[in-house]
């Protein structure tokens, strides 16, 4: 029996692994380096045998993947904006003399491998578990497809695969942070394929330290809206295992501005459920009160 209540670090990790525990790994996705080549999306599918996700032209710039889903564990967002790339137009006159200027934000999204993972907390079968690397993975053979993790994830990452007799049909699917590769000491397929090192894989501590320096550099070169997303261990999910350097607000990329792991409010939730049960008891009690007299 596992009880997984929110704490300051991924509950049950690393203790539950004792000596087998490994340093926590994750991603720092630096979107200022992304060239939108989608190699990460393809490499992920190739390595993890993720099926094609439908031939749908969205008209959303060059993004025809749309969103993270059971069949897309990486998703590169494309955002066209009428804005100069940087504030300081002397260091950079994007769009020439055009006062508006243009910028095209590209960012490769992925499961955040939350410190406090709602998907994992609510999973009634224990299919979702915390690996020795502190990452969050679905055990395909345990998952019963109850779908509870799906609305629980504050990022809309995890989803159920619904492809008749395809491998993993009916089970929840998401990025495994290439558990098989990390176990084998290899970097994840997406990071490996990324030509510009926009996806940086490593020990979370190092990544966070590096990211702070990077933010300073980027900020110094004039990106007014540059911000780290998910690098702060005190945030609503206790910090992301996969965090980002964004050039605009998270919601512009389809990310929640202030996600909170739903189980943080679990005491309140259980509390009112019990209170309501009590209220029910009272209601019934009163209903009989008259008779007793």
């Amino acid at each position, binding site marked *: 029996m596992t009880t997984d209540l929110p704490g300051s670090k991924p509950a049950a990790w690393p203790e539950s692994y004792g000596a087998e525990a490994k340093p926590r790994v994750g991603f720092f996705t630096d979107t200022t380096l992304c*060239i939108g080549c989608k190699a990460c999306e393809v490499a992920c599918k190739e390595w993890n045998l993720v*099926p094609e996700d439908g031939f749908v*032209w969205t008209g959303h710039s060059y993004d025809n993947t749309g969103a993270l889903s059971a069949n897309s564990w990486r998703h590169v967002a494309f955002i066209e904006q009428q804005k100069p790339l940087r504030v300081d137009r002397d260091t950079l006159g994007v769009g*020439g*003399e*055009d006062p508006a200027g243009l910028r095209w934000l590209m960012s490769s999204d992925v499961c955040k491998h939350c410190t406090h993972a709602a998907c994992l907390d609510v999973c009634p079968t224990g299919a979702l578990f915390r690996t020795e690397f502190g990452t969050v993975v679905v055990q395909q053979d345990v998952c019963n497809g109850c779908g509870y993790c799906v609305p629980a994830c504050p990022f809309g990452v995890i989803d159920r695969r619904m492809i008749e007799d395809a491998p993993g049909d009916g089970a929840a699917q998401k990025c495994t942070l290439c558990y098989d590769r990390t176990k084998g000491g290899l970097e994840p397929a997406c990071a490996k394929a990324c030509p510009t090192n926009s996806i940086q894989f490593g020990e979370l501590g190092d990544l966070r330290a590096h990211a702070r320096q990077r933010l300073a550099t980027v900020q110094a070169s004039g990106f007014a809206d540059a911000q780290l997303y998910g690098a702060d261990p005190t945030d609503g999910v206790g910090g992301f295992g996969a965090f980002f350097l964004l050039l605009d607000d998270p919601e512009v990329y389809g990310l929640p501005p202030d996600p909170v792991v739903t189980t943080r409010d679990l005491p309140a939730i259980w509390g009112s459920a019990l209170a309501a049960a009590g209220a029910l008891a009272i209601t019934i009690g009163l209903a009989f009160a008259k008779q007793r007299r």
Partner: protein
Amino acid sequence: MGSNMAENHPVGYQWVMEARERGAQVIHVDPRFTRTSATATKWVQVRAGADIAFLGGIINYILEHGREFRDYVVNYTNAPVIINEEFQDTEELAGFFSGWDAAEGRYDNGSWQYEGMDVLGSAGKRSRGANVGHAASQGGHGNELELSEPPAQDPTLEHPRCVFQILKRHFQRYTPELVAELCGCTAADLIAVAEALCANSGRERTSAFVYSVGWTQHTVGVQNVRAAAIIQLLLGNVGRPGGGVMALRGHASIQGSTDIPTLYDILPGYIPMPDAYAHDNLKEYVERNSSPSGWWGNMNTYVVSLLKAYWGSAANPANDFCFDYLPRITGDHSEYQAALSMLDGEMHGYFLLGENPGVGSANARLHRLALANLQWLVVRDLVEIESASFWYDAPEFETGELIADQIRTEVFLLPAASIVEKEGSFTNTQRLLQWHHKAVEPQGDCRSDLWFIYHLGRIIRQKLAGSQDPKDRPLLDLQWDYPTEGALDEPSAEAVLREINGWDAEGKALTAYTQLKADGSTTCGCWIYCGSFADEENQTARRKPGSEQSWVAPEWGWAWPANRRIIYNRASADPSGVPWSERKRYVWWDEASGRWTGYDNPDFEADKRPDYVPPEGARAQAAIAGNHPFILQADGRGWLFAPSGLVDGPLPAHYEPHESPFRNPLYAPRANPARQQFPRPANPYHPSNGDVGADAYPYVMTTYRLTEHHTAGGMSRTAPLLAELQPEMFCEVSPELAAERNLEHGGWATIITARTAIEARVLVTDRIKPLAVQGRTLHQVGLPYHWGSKGLVTGDSANDIFPIALDPNVHIQEVKAATCDIRPGRRPRGKALRELVDRYPRSQEADGT
């Protein structure tokens, strides 16, 4: 410029990103705001087809402000050389250079020569096309060049007829204002770019140009590149680290297929193909095509060694080393000419090995009709491509232009082994050969192309065995004895590489092309590849990590020539052999050891002193002075002005694309007068600007690639994980054009030309803004060209609406700029499609202007 590196060379682009992070300025000049523009430090939007104006503007800026790298220009380029009196520039002849033959529609370059002598280009085109008459008129070889030193020069660069002054005059009208008017950018943009280049060039710094087919696929394609070369020579950015003009090539090893050509007009190593009208014997051929000075002075050794590689023992001095076995060319036999010959019923059979013209070639509709007119067609491909399936599912059935049971073409579709199923070498953009190994055995009937060609030849030779017919000798005498391996009898690719490398009389692998002999004692399949198998070792398979060797990494793969990573690198040192600067030191003269030395293999005879002066009667490289780095040129200099080698002028000049909605404010000829046109019912052109009906096609369309697909799509539309990323053919238009034509984002548009009309989903985007050109608003329509009728995702092919109009030098199609009309909604089906197109004006004649 003319390259979308981030999208089409993403892996190579990582180094550009790294440079950017280290403070390099990355400037992208493109009609569209692409993934490259998005990651560059500056984007300049230009109109498709006006690059020479932009580059000319930079040249003018450099010359007007005296920003050229004087010492470099005076010593290493032909700037001081004085040109023939007869030469007249476009400025004097209203847009033509002297030597224009209006009747023949081509140039005679006789008047473009250096005063007092006759210099030849480094390779190719010297004995054909425009130059034939000229070359012939010189009787044998014209005035021999005693020294590599052109007789008439003015080191002060003041002489009115010196190249430098000619250049100045030629480009003086290319002011920032004119550039802005022609390109649709602003004068400030041009100045900013020019200034950035100048500021980042000279002794201490270098700048590089990167181009690709955004420059080449024009009727002035070659001159676009020439213009960049002129800028780099003026700024001293050639032969030095961080400099150069980088052509980002296309298909894997397309560079290799130029070096060991799949082209009709050159033999391996850029040796010109013999000409039916000019070359009766080896001696004459070599004389016409070699130059007495410079490395081409050794051409006889290259050719003889090549003939020995072909015909081995059968090739001997007595029979001219089988020179007569070589085919002769009679003119343009390029892909487009071939397609037209099929259409005209002059060509009956065709091999299509890894090409999909039914989608990938300009006027793809014409190509499908042409293929349908063949008697037989052999297609070797990974998948059944449109060029193989046309006989039962060409779009022309729907329109009634083709009728299935009337097509007599017999199509043989043979499955090809893919890259992972075979081994061999790749030659990349940087002339770097890298060996790749086989990962898995070919599946089913799939076989490598090497297997196919070798066994095809073997079987034909078997069938011909014993034949007395002289026309069979070339085949029967071929040295065709490659060892085969494995269950599939796969010929050894290494054996082929070794043959290309060549061997000496003892059969030992050669180490350098300097060892080649003209007496038949050496064989070599391609002189520039000589050394790739030095010491009996496959040098291209070397994989020493960069961290374990110098930053030049000479032990990773092998680069031609002689494993040189930068050619003409002697130019990285000043005339006296001292590096121009410490920062940029690369190759230099070491007085102590009396040799050239440096990080790279010096592209110069190791012991030739910087102050070397060729003695009387010196030949070949010995005739090149110690301070002339461009050792493949007869005069050892970089050519700002090209006396020969080009059929459309010694200098670039701005001409409009073959189809353009604009007049040419600079010259009388609107478009390149020497361009190739093929007017005919299946290849109609648009009335050109001014003529009636020209305004029916008010917009400029341009085509390009997407990261998510590959060229004609055979390899990507069939791959689910790629197909899903760009599942539909679309066109990119500006909000303004969308408003003007009621195009709805996400809806459909029909793009119409005189060829036909295609449909595409509408992507409204600010990334392709309208431009102000010649005082009016120009809208451009962007079209990816990856779609066709087969595969997991299908769509109309952009190439169906492009005309065949070619660059005269290399016969490349102009698919980067043409005119069109665009309307909302899907295109008509069936006969109605032709009816719509027929309502639009067309011209059946070649366009004089």
